[in-house]
């Protein structure tokens, strides 16, 4: 094992080599904080590097020294992975669907074989399909390295001892059981017994148990904060068994307990791709002649673009309009046409045109460096990152972007010229793997992975996440190398005995120094129950701490006194007020007064979210339009009767063609969907005409006719689907229905479908013979009407409707807006107004009550 006293680490000119980049970052920070705590403004800083960087430094040194071994260039991590991806993609026998995803495991096997000095299988001698595939890949990778004149860090490591170490080369630190090749490269280790590597007793850890991980991490942070505050020299370390898994919980707990993200050092930084400016960056580069609505919508409204502030409202409204077009993919030409000459969107227009121009000028393939230049030009055109150059946001974003480019353009050394899409994918991947620079924490509290804790030489240590698999579960052998040699070599995860020894060493080494030692575990998560790790005897004795309420410090507000406010009415409407939404407001009022108020007086609606294909609303509208066209062509039943089946079909086809005229099909998908819709409508309209051909004579006197009607002191704009005149001169008002409909929908009180009764009431007395739903269903066309028979008391029915509609209109006029759904949960189920009506707050969840208490009959 390799472990140096903390005091030795900061010796000027000394170099320290630690297990990885994460360890190196944490240790460098710890050394700096210790100097600051000692009152120093500046100091000679030691070089702290992870071993791959140290190997790279040695390689460069050899190269500068002109040694033969230094001929090859050393692949960067990105280059190495890109090379593996090429190898896997080229291996026809493996036929991989996503070589990029498979490459890391192959690269890991290669590295593992070298670090642990495992003889790799040959293609002919591999025992399994997986190892045989790896043997092929490894051979191909080796060949590519040779062809390129390149090498990688693991390969270099194998040549340890052959070269002179560079001046200031580091000493190993923080390694418990390094792989043999690494150990040999690091040189002489500190002996396990005595000296710096003093091992302590696992009994030194005071055990704690908590109900779940959030409680556990919060308790550890609450323990750490006062120690760090009281003792600037302290290095308070909270080490987790699986930091990757626990990261969201830890991040949340840091904010809850310590106040904000910068209060302590967290060993896992956020991905650059998740930062707002970089979301905008990717969105900008995805702008193409055809865009998906959701991507475009997010980009369009992003604040990091030129003109985002001044055109904010106009862009949001444009987006809402575009979404309302029911198009999943949007041609840029259509977007530009929508913008038109709107001065409120002038910057957006210029920006889109510039991006499209750059897009059009881009070659099909070019080296990565060319694409990075192209991307940079796109970003400049977009005004990215959208703030003044002097803003820290701009500086940091630009710097991070430059660093990403620095790494990406190295890919030209190993990759053939990519397409734009391939280059963008590389960039996306690189942004996902890059992390945000970690700011200096206010206190010396380090939350790190357990394996990184040793290098920090904690003065105060809390091992968290010590459940039964602590330190022994995470490691796994490679599936691409035979298991027996891995076990023989002691690869982590391959040999339980060696794993246990390793875990014990770590626990005991950590116990060997420092002033306070705690260990904890979570007794459960959800339904699961966990048991403590036997490595830490103190845990078995710990009683589970009762769950505490976890509330963020920033939420510390006193309870507000809430006053009741009777808000069941809006202002009454002036006489003659014209209602938006026509008779739909009556239907809404009938279902729930609040719904009517919200929809028709507040215009409270959601922003639509398009889906591929045609929406139900569009399909319904098309049916109405085509039927209107059909009856426009026919005029009356006699004309229909004169047609035979073929004639009706031809007429349906003509009507549908005319009805579909407004549909634009600009994408291949739309062309297909519209063709299907046309065929569907021809069949549907044809069937309907077949059905109507059996009716008594009538003529169609109105189609989709709109008018304004005064009723109950209000003015309603109405649109009638169709009005038929019967032989006796009286009229039937018709409403086309493509979904479910029932005669019972006209039953007061609070009719579900008051539209047709409304027409019946407002029409001149005696002119209406009845009302009808035309159920336009290809399989079962139906005509549902009232009166149902000649015997029915029409006058009584009309009177009942009048009473009901008077009631509804009166409520509307008086501004009644109480959330009282007619059928309880059944009414609310498909209503979008829940966030606004606040019914749950008032009545509690409706569950399935109110619909007769049955879920299903």
């Amino acid at each position, binding site marked *: 094992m390799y472990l140096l006293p903390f005091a030795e680490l900061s010796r000027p000119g000394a170099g320290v080599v630690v297990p990885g980049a994460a360890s190196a970052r944490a240790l460098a920070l710890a050394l700096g904080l210790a100097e600051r705590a000692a009152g120093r403004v500046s100091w000679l800083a030691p070089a702290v590097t992870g071993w791959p960087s140290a190997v790279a430094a040695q390689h460069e040194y050899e190269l500068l020294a002109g040694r033969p071994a230094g001929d090859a260039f050393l692949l960067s991590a990105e280059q190495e992975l890109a090379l593996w991806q090429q190898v896997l993609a080229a291996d026809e026998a493996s036929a991989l669907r996503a070589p990029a995803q498979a490459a890391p495991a192959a690269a890991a096997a290669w590295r593992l074989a070298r670090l642990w000095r495992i003889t790799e299988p040959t293609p002919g001698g591999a025992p399994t399909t997986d190892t045989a595939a790896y043997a092929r890949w490894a051979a191909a990778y080796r060949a590519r390295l040779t062809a390129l004149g390149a090498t990688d860090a693991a390969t270099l490591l194998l040549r340890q001892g052959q070269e002179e170490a560079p001046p200031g080369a580091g000493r190993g630190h923080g390694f418990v059981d390094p792989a043999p090749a690494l150990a040999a490269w690091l040189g002489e280790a500190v002996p396990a017994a005595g000296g710096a590597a003093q091992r302590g007793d696992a009994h030194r850890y005071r055990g704690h148990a908590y109900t779940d991980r959030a409680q556990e991490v919060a308790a550890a942070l609450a323990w750490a904060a006062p120690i760090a505050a009281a003792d600037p020299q302290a290095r308070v370390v909270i080490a987790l068994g699986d930091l990757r898994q626990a990261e969201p919980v830890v991040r949340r707990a840091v904010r809850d307990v310590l106040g904000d993200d910068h209060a302590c050092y967290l060993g896992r930084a956020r991905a650059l791709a*998740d*930062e707002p400016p970089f979301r905008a960056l990717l969105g900008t580069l995805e702008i193409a002649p055809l865009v998906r609505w959701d991507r475009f919508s997010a980009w369009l409204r992003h604040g990091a673009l030129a003109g985002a502030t001044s055109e904010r409202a106009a862009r949001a409204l444009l987006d*809402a309009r575009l979404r309302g077009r029911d198009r999943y993919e949007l041609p840029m030409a259509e977007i530009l046409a929508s913008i038109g000459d709107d001065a409120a969107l002038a910057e957006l227009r210029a920006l889109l045109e510039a991006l499209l121009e750059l897009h059009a000028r881009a070659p099909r393939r070019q080296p990565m460096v060319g694409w990075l230049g192209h991307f940079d030009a796109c970003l400049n055109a977009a005004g990215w990152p959208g703030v003044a150059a002097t803003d820290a946001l701009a500086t940091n974003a630009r710097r991070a972007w430059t660093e990403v480019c620095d790494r990406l353009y190295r890919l030209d050394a190993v990759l053939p010229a990519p397409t734009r899409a391939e280059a963008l994918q590389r960039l996306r991947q690189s942004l996902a793997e890059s992390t945000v620079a970690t700011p200096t924490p206010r206190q010396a509290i380090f939350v790190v992975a357990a394996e990184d804790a040793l290098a920090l030489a904690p003065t105060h240590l809390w091992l968290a996440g010590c459940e*039964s698999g602590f330190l022994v579960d995470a490691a796994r052998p490679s599936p691409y190398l035979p298991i027996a040699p891995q076990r023989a070599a002691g690869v982590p995860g391959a040999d339980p005995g060696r794993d246990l020894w390793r875990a014990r060493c770590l626990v005991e080494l950590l116990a060997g120094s420092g002033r306070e030692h705690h260990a904890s575990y979570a007794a459960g998560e959800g339904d699961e129950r966990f*048991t403590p790790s*036997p490595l830490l005897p103190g845990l078995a004795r710990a009683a589970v701490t009762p*769950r505490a309420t976890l509330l963020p410090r920033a939420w510390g507000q006193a309870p507000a006194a809430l006053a009741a406010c009777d808000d069941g009415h809006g202002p009454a409407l002036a006489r003659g007020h014209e209602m938006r939404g026509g008779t739909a407001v009556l239907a809404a009022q009938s279902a729930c007064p609040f719904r009517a108020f919200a929809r028709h007086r507040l215009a409270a609606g959601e922003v639509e979210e398009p889906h591929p294909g045609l929406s139900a609303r569009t399909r319904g509208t098309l049916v109405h339009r085509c039927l209107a066209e059909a009856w426009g062509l026919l005029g009356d039943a006699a004309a229909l009767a004169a047609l035979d089946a073929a004639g009706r079909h031809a007429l349906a086809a003509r009507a549908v063609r005319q009805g579909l005229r407004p549909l634009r099909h600009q994408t291949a998908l739309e062309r297909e969907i519209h063709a299907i819709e046309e065929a569907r409508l021809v069949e549907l309209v044809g069937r309907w005409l077949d059905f109507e051909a059996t009716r008594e004579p009538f003529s169609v006197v109105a189609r989709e006719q709109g008018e304004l009607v005064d009723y109950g002191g209000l003015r309603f704009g109405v649109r009638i689907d169709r009005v038929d005149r019967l032989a006796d001169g009286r009229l039937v008002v018709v409403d086309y229905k493509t979904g479910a409909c029932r005669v019972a929908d006209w039953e007061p009180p609070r009719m579900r479908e008051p539209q047709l009764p409304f027409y019946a009431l407002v029409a001149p007395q005696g002119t209406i013979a009845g009302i009808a739903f035309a159920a336009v269903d290809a399989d079962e066309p139906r005509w549902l009407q009232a009166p149902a028979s000649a015997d029915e008391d029409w006058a009584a029915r009309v009177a009942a409707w009048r009473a009901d509609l008077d009631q509804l209109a009166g409520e509307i006029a008086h501004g009644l807006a109480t959330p009282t759904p007619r059928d309880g949960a059944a009414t609310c189920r498909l209503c979008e107004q829940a966030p606004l009506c606040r019914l749950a707050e008032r009545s509690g969840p409706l569950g399935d009550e109110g619909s007769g208490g*049955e879920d299903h009959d």
Partner: protein
Amino acid sequence: MIDDAAARTRALEPGISFAVRAPAGSGKTSLLTQRVLRLLASVEQPEQIVAITFTRKAAEEMRLRIVEALVAATAPEPADDYQRTTWSLARAVVARDAERGWQLMAQPARLRIMTIDALCQSLVRQMPLTAGLPGLPAVEDDPGLLYGEAAREALASITHGGRLRDAVACLLRHLDNDWSHLETLLAEMLARRDQWLRLTTAGADRAQLEDGFRRLVERELAQLRQAIPADSGAALVALGAFVGGQLDEPLLRGLAALPPARLEALPAWQALGRFLLTRSGEWRRKVTRAEGFPPKADDPQGMKQVHADVVTELAAVPGLGRNLARLMGLATGPYDETDWAVVLALFDVLQVAAAHLVVTADVAGRADFTAFSIAALAALGEPERPTDLALALDYQIRHLLIDEFQDTSVTQFELVRRLTAGWQPGDGRTLFVVGDPMQSIYRFRQAEVSLFQRVLDDRAIGEVALEPLALAVNFRAQAGLVDWINQATPAALARIAAEPAHFVPQVAVRAALEPAWMLHPAVQHDGAAEAAAVVELVARLRAAEPAASIAVLVRSRGHLGSIVMALQAAGVPLAAREIRRFLEVPAVADLVALARALLHDADRLAWLAVLRAPWCGLELAALETLAAASGTLAAALAEPTLLQALEPAAARRAARVAAILVAARERLLREPFADVVEATWVALGGPAVVLGGPGGAAELEHARAVFAELARLAGAEAELTAARLGAHFAERFVVPAQPDGQAVQVMTMHRAKGLEFDHVVLPSLGRTPRAEDKPLLAWREELDRHGRPALAVAPLPRQRSGPLYDYLRASAAAEVREEGVRLLYVALTRARRQVHLFGHAPVGTDGAPAPRKGSFLDLLWPLLGDTFHAMLGAAAPAPPVRAALAAPAPLLRADPDDLPARLPGPLVPAAAEAAVEFDWAGIDARHVGTVTHRLLQDWGQRRERPPPGTWIEGARRFAEVQLRALGMAPARVAGAVEEVAAALAVALAGDRATWLFDPTHAEAAAELALGWTSADEVRRLVIDRTFVDADGTRWIVDFKTGTHAGGDLAGWLDAEQARYRPQLERYAAALAALEPRPIRLGLYFPLVDGWREWGYAGGA
């Protein structure tokens, strides 16, 4: 009393494989634990034993039991029989552990007790390529988005032309061109593709499917024929012949015997069915001329009476009517050309959707559990052609134990078969499956209860022979309850005409307590009344027995109605898991609205909701004023004249919120979305209004959980939209805090499995479950006596019904009904002492209460009916009344003066050092500069220097390698190397460089690393070159490898000096803190041999 001790002892035989039926409360887990202990004493490595449990919780519990047993083995021998057995088994393990050096106690994770999903993942991890998941994806717990995306991609294949285009178009036409519906149905199918994928792989074979249909129908006809009692059969034949004559129906005319069990005879059966059954499938009690029966006067033979007698006799045969009804709509040819085209299309599209899912998952690096189970099967290979598993697995499995075997799916069963392929009798490897078919309640997770029966019948799984064992002793419930359940369960099965094959009566160990069950009847469902009665009962039980555990179990969440609220209102401590959804919590609904508002300025509904929430509390009048403005509400709020149009109090409320929201939108540019939403919510006074409201701190904890979820959602690759937000929080349940003390547990019956309570309260037994959604494809697959599969499939019909689809769904419905009985059994057997049955039975037309068909009360009616009548007594049944909604309580809102006034500024990290931005056109020059810089550093670091010319020659090789590594185009490398060499030559030849690199300088250093700290940061600085000159002045020099073309070099150098001045002065400040020397600063430009220097004024 049945003594099953022999079976329990036998089950520990290490060399024998067993299939054990272990009913509720029979100590199944204890038996499994003992067997694992027994096996541990016999293996080389503990990893050779794999025990499969249904949940991770169960796995951890079993591991704990084993560890506890090992710990207890060091204690003296216990007296109790069971514990003594465990003790001695554990002692043997301890000895084995010591002998083999396992250190199990220190490493309990070596015990491979896991879920079947975990086993699949483990297999895939060991053979990822063979398994077809070489990317080793992470498990996606929430794969809905993946399914949706794959379904969408499959449908988008319509643009690809050819057969696939036709297939998608066919399906879209079939479903009225409703893409969304089709996509949803496809996505649902993907969730259970392990069931149908193998059926569709080879494409649709019409002859094969028609043959499968024939065999299924003929099997059913044979069962029908056999079920008809001989006497009734003869009378039925006579009736048939009579009706045939009356109606001139050729299918029946002259009927002399029951039709054969042949598909061709199906129409004849249906002709018989038409006078036996009504259209709705009920027994036809009255017949008329329409059915072929003349009025009494014209019926001298009394055929109507014969009919009545036959119907009475047949109705007494369990299931006969339902089976006949199922066949009534079927045609002898299952598919017409249109149907068949849809089947073909569906098979194609399903295959493509599954393929897209694989690709989608590959690219995303995430896969669902089903992908892992399919992959694990692939890794194992066909039993006949196994893969090289033995060479790949880290440990060979010698003993496989499977708990809850009744919930095994077909895929999991196949996995077990393949894992044990090649196991030979006597080779020491064993399989041990244990479960209770009566507790199979996970059909929705593809559990297939018939598999257990098949294993018991076959006494084998694949090649492994299993000895059946049965446990019968119930250690959990008191005798009265066990006896009642022994009666109730067969009665419930009989009620749905199901065979009681899976049920085995139990024998109680615990003494009887009376009463075992209590009925709480009602004639109509009244949620409020039921909730009040439950509260009253719970209070009574808690008062009488404070330590007793109580659970309220419901069939579905909707059946709880207002029970949870009523219990909460009564102050009863509750543990209600997966009961309340996030959006049902007002605080959560408000902050989701806030998130939506920040997501989109034009989301009017969300903006209005934000303005109406308690932190703002605008009334409808004010909202209408703002809503009347054109443009977005966000813009309206920023409009002073509009705010002035409001009442002053409303204007004040609106202005405060507007200011916060404007600031929030600016922060969106700098901080992750979830962070901004949280900060805004806090600034609006979110915590204050929640604490002041009825929900209190508990709701605040839910809000905290929402922010954690929001961070995850916003960080995902898929764009966050209002719909996604809404759907996410509408579907997920809040996790309530566990109260102190003995809480009443409220949960669904499914969740209660594996738990036990003293008292079990079962409300809403009179209600029926929601109907299952109709899948895109219905199918039925059965093996005949020869093991040949008979498969029939039907796509979702375009019309409301389709004969074959309905027939296949009706077959599944029988399974659903049987599972219903099992669910009731599970609920009843959770009780140790007493069950409390709440239910309503509406009064029928005959004035008697009758439970609704399909309700649990209906299942128990044979036992409860009389009591129900008696308890209701003479009380006149109330007419059904629609439950009236309570008048909504008034809106609550806070006083703005009690809330924060503004949003604090963001936490802005300090700007990093300004970066040199790329000049893309001059990238090669940049590379040259970088390499030159590195070489000059090397020159500066050298203690012994060769002549510059020699060194430059050597540097060429370094330059070439580095330029290649940097990605420079090969054609450019040679030229660039020359440029580097030239720059070095110029630099080293000049006086400036000679002075800079003079080895005689005191304290000379290159790449000097300094730590430097300020108030809020610790930074590392690296100085290119530093030394102390003869005058004792400290020089700090940085090399800059920028180039300048064109004129005015001096101007460019001045500009560069201004640009880098802060950087160098920071170096100077750092060094000044270490030594008291005068300091001068210099910038050296080797590529243009430029120089700028200035004195450091000491930070002034």
